[in-house]
């Protein structure tokens, strides 16, 4: 591996570029017309313009990306997160073109991308899953049978969609028939597919995930957990490691299940097994992300390990640099995501030009940014501007540093999630580490 093309933009493109430089690898950035002046373009050794602003004509266009790799003589592609990172056809096309895909094998991406297949594979590997129907249900009797077996509440979900759209919660058996009719109707209108499946509904669950890493020689390790319960629209806003107040048996079970799950699908490179944890400490597989994640710096800060450098090494065929017993959580780390969104208007996007930008600095403070003063925040892409990460000897210290970091940060020209983040970090439940995924929607931080 000599030269890496980064098929992404923003902060993650810059993060990957840095890791390449660390290993002495040459770099190629790609960009759209809207990103001509973007920092990630300047950071790279060379840069190739892909086309007009829409992502489907640039960062999502497999042919143009492969053409750019050929033109620049790159021999590897890093997909980052989002865009094509979990598209198995892309992983396969890169490999078929004779290039190295810096990520898992296409087959693993494919298996985990089909959410009901992923659930079946993980259940077969002994990973706990939420009680539910194995697939879409044909009539309400199947939902009644699940209710009798697993108890209420249940949730009806559209098999053809996601993002919480069309979900119907049912608290008792007598409500099932009308709920089934309504969920079917909503699934049809939202996704053009009326199929509905049923799961046990978890009250106020936490989102806890485990970072795994595997090499091409069969070694699999975990890098402990991240707590990511503070979300809106099923997207994370604040992440931390360790997960506060996680019962030790739950922690042990989670990391063992994550490693077993990764092993079961012959996983290679960085991946994340996501779980829901209920109030009793029970844990249930949610899905696997077959890529580097937005929140990976939290794990880097508590373990002292460089996950993106390791991705490059493993993709080049090297064995994992770490043994399980060397991977230790020291202190605590927290990350906040600063999005160009208006928290006072239900997180509506806020495109525009950043007229003033002041970033924090100080002990234990890390900034991962895709923008600078003068950057135009376009309607065409994800609204993530930058991430702030702080660490400390304790969770309290990491939180105090984050409060200072947010107080020192200035963004003018677009609305951001900063006021929300400041409020959230002052909340007594956040301070004492009593978190669940419904806090934002239930208005805990208003």
């Amino acid at each position: 591996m000599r030269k890496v093309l980064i098929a992404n933009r923003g902060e993650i493109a810059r993060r990957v570029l840095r890791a390449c430089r660390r290993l002495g690898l040459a770099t190629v950035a790609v960009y759209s017309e809207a990103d001509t002046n973007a920092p990630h373009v300047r950071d790279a050794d060379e840069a190739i313009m892909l086309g007009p602003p829409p992502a489907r004509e640039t960062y999502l266009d497999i042919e143009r990306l492969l053409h750019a790799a050929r033109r620049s003589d790159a021999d590897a592609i890093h997909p980052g997160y989002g865009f094509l990172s979990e598209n198995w056809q892309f992983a396969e096309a890169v490999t078929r073109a004779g290039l190295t895909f810096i990520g898992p094998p296409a087959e693993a991406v494919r298996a985990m991308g089909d959410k009901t297949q992923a659930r079946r594979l993980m259940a077969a590997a002994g990973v706990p899953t939420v009680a539910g129907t194995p697939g879409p249900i044909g009539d309400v009797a199947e939902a009644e049978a699940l209710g009798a077996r697993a108890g209420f509440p249940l949730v009806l979900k559209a098999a053809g969609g996601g993002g919480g759209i069309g979900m119907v919660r049912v608290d008792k058996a007598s409500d099932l028939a009308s709920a089934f009719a309504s969920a079917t109707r909503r699934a049809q209108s939202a996704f053009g597919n009326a199929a509905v499946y049923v799961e046990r509904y978890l009250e106020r669950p936490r989102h806890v995930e485990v970072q795994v890493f595997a090499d091409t020689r069969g070694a699999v390790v975990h890098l402990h957990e991240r707590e990511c319960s503070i979300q809106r629209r099923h997207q994370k806003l604040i992440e931390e490691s360790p997960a506060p107040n996680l019962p030790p048996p739950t922690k042990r079970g989670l990391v063992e299940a994550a490693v077993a799950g990764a092993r079961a699908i012959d996983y290679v490179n960085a991946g994340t097994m996501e779980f829901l944890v209920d109030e009793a400490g029970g844990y249930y597989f949610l899905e696997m992300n077959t890529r580097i994640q937005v929140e990976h710096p939290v794990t880097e800060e508590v373990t002292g390990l460089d996950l993106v450098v390791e991705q490059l090494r493993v993709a080049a065929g090297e064995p994992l640099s770490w043994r399980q017993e060397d991977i230790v959580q020291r202190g605590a780390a927290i990350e906040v995501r600063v999005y160009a969104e208006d928290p006072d208007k239900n997180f509506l996007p806020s495109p525009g030009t950043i007229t003033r930008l002041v970033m924090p600095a100080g002990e234990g403070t890390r900034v991962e940014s895709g923008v600078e003063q003068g950057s135009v925040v376009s309607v065409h892409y994800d609204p993530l501007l930058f991430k702030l990460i702080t660490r400390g000897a304790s969770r309290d210290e990491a939180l105090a540093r984050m409060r200072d970091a947010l107080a020192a940060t200035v963004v003018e020209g677009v609305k951001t999630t900063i006021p929300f983040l400041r409020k959230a970090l002052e909340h007594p439940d956040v301070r004492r580490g009593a978190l669940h995924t419904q806090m934002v929607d239930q208005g805990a931080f208003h």
Partner: protein
Amino acid sequence: MPEEIKAHITGVVFQIPTKQGDKVGAGDPVIVLESMKMEIPVEAPRAGTVREIKVQEGQTVQEGDTVAVLD
């Protein structure tokens, strides 16, 4: 009284679920914008009939632009 429906956000017209002459209720999506990977409906402020759709799919609209007119 005709009433202009304005975009409350800058974005690209993703979908136009209504057409001229359609009856809509208050809160029904008249057009759907896409901005920063989110689909955001522009809703009818009241019940009425769509007199005119002023945008096309794929068109960029600025916050405050008129996207449709309600009779």
